[in-house]
């Protein structure tokens, strides 16, 4: 199956969802009488809300889940138990929009990239947030400018192995081993807000520091991408994002060569609240490439890893 067919499939799913949503038109409620968020969400720790006219969709709790990942590192079956809070909240009469997704907790699993495989256990931290400015706060549709920060790290140990020997095992590119990404981004696009729904469509440019992977050395990437975040309802949230970036030109004097790395990734996430608990399904594909040009040769080597897919399903229990 090609990448295009993957995208088509995802697009179909998204389109189906949007069309279905249209089949039950959202009730437009004047801002002053907006329905507040569910009681569960109200108890989540989050930035202080503005007035009742503000949009607020917040979840928090303990999320337990597992998944499956394939990559140049091999196979992994990761699991996690984290405290997670996600939210989208407006301020100052819907002039500002804050979105966040933060989690911290334990990860573990089984990596099948060696023979025999091994169990790993450790911790992870994720902090993703963006503050945006809606230039037309009184309108449901508004141009949007935002700035965000993304910190993502994981550190794991191999069960039964001394800490000093951890680098005798393959790095798992973010699923296990020691890995991290730090990125700052600037976004622009459009924001739709009504009391029950939100849609944020943006394009962005970001600078990302990616830690060394299973082979590649750590590098800074300048990346561009598109991001869509849709609250079909406050109980059904969808996020889609795709980005592509490159490193700067890096000289390799030992070989008289110049290298330039590239990174592509697409992520999709669907979260559905069912009363007091939620189910979240997350998928991701990524690909890393490199272009090497030798000063003394007309040959250029443009390489790419196989697409690295991962998928995880988690169940969250809100903290009441």
């Amino acid at each position: 199956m090609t990448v295009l067919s993957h995208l088509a499939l995802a697009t179909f799913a998204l389109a189906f969802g949007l069309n279905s949503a249209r089949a039950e038109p959202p009730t437009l409620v004047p801002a002053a009488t907006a329905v507040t968020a569910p009681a569960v969400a109200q108890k989540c720790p989050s930035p202080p809300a503005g007035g009742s006219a503000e949009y607020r969709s917040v979840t928090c709790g303990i999320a337990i889940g597992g998944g499956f990942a394939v990559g140049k590192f091999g196979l992994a079956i990761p699991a996690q138990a984290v405290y997670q809070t996600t939210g989208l909240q407006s301020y100052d009469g819907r002039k500002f929009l804050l979105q966040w997704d933060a989690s911290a907790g334990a990860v573990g699993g089984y990596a099948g990239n060696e023979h025999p495989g091994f169990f790993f256990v450790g911790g992870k931290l994720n902090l993703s947030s963006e503050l945006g400015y809606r230039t037309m706060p009184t309108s449901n549709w508004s141009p949007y400018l935002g700035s965000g920060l993304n910190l993502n790290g994981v550190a794991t140990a191999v069960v039964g192995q001394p800490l000093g020997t951890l680098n005798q095992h393959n790095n798992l590119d973010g699923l296990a081993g020691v890995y991290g990404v730090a990125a700052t981004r600037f976004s622009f696009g459009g924001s739709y807000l009504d009391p029950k729904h939100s849609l944020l469509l943006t394009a962005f440019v970001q600078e990302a520091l990616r830690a060394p992977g299973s082979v590649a050395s750590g590098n800074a990437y300048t990346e561009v991408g598109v991001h869509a975040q849709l609250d079909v309802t406050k109980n059904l949230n969808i996020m889609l994002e795709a980005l592509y970036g490159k490193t700067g030109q890096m000289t390799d004097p030992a070989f008289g060569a110049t290298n330039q790395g590239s990174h592509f990734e697409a992520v999709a996430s669907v979260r559905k609240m069912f009363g007091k608990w939620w189910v979240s399904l997350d998928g991701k594909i990524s690909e890393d490439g490199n272009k090497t040009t030798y000063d003394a040769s007309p040959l250029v080597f443009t390489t790419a890893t196989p697409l690295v897919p991962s998928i995880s399903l988690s169940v969250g229990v809100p903290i009441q």
Partner: protein
Amino acid sequence: MKIKNLVSTALIIGVAAFAASSISCAFTASKWGLDAIDTMVTPVDPPLTCGAQIPDDTMTSKRTACTFAAGAHAAQTLDVSTSVSNQLPIRHIIILMKENRSFDHMLGKLHEQGQPGTEAVPPSFINTDSSGAAVAAHHATTTCIPFDPNHQSTAVIASVANGYMNGFVKNAAGSSVDPLGNPATTDGHYVMSEYESADLPFYYWLANTYALNDRHFAPLQSGTYASRNFFMLGTNAGVVDTGISFPDPGTNSIFRTLMTSGYTWGAYSDSEPFSGSLGWTSADPGVHSMQEFYKSLDDGTLPNVVFVDAEEEIEDEHPTADVQVGKAWTRNIYQHAIKSPQWPRMAIVFTYDEAGAFADHVPPPSSCLANAGDSPFTELGPRVPFIMISPWAKSHYVSHVAHDHTAITRFIETIFDLPALTSRDANSDALLDMFDFSCGRNMTPPEAPGSGTGGCKP
């Protein structure tokens, strides 16, 4: 509400299908950017010359100290200048890398059977089995050993046992599988078995006729993938054990350095090239069939560097294959090679990728870390057979220079004046003590004995 549930269900199915169906992509051939090899033309060999003088090696201590880094040429690390490299008559190198046999297992009787210059297996070399009984080296009763011991990193490290070399039998007893890959019941004694000249007449003849090295070690204490990566990339490239993990295609390689200097290479196999360690298939650039190999060999149109891999677990001698079948395959290549128009410009490196957890009595030494930040695999693996077959190879010669597969890499780099890939090959020797490039050498090889006919007979 019902519609919204349908929405969420559709979305979840969509995301699941999106990610799950991508999984198949990860197993396709990697994109190594080597497409140009299929249109490159092998440079015309310069006129055959003789008499090249290899300078005395004064850099041994510096290499032992891991002084040199990636990019270093033989002129810096071996005192072999470009002008000397250009005088060397070899312009076609064939790498025959078989699977999973230790030196003692294959050639343990060579000291008594034709080549006293090799180190004999000491009578005191024993492993104890799980009952505490001493197991000494003994004659193998079959060329079709029906077991395959675990030979990945944890197993080989346990077998080497910090240099005591006494964990092989217990490892085999606890980890062997049968020809179908199912756990097998065995006392593990078979890993102490040895073949003799009568079992493997052609291999013993090669070892007695051409130049042999009895200090050639696997590049790390692990399996096929990581071992072969050292040879092609100068590093294990993040791969620890054999499985489904492949190097990043962006890793610098001997393929690239050859191509950027205008030299060609080809990988020939009717199975997986490089025993699957790169994830390549017959569709990848530079990969050809064995039929094409024999034709190029007969026609004298081989590329500069040739990698030949036998059919897995049939001709490659990986247990539980019949060694005699693999030997016949090797002999067939040899017989074609000596009749090839390129024989006077040829060197055939015959070796095994790793010892496969078969016992060897020589504790492996340490070597250099390939790249800063790499997995710390600086301890070499157990010895494997290593024979240099060439009209320029010293006859009935035994080299005791300790090295690993990156010496093959360094040999290629020296012949074609290429930069080292990593610190590992930069600090390796280049096998040159196994050659005599003086004039007047006899280019006509002696008659080779038969190879045996298989059938699991000793």
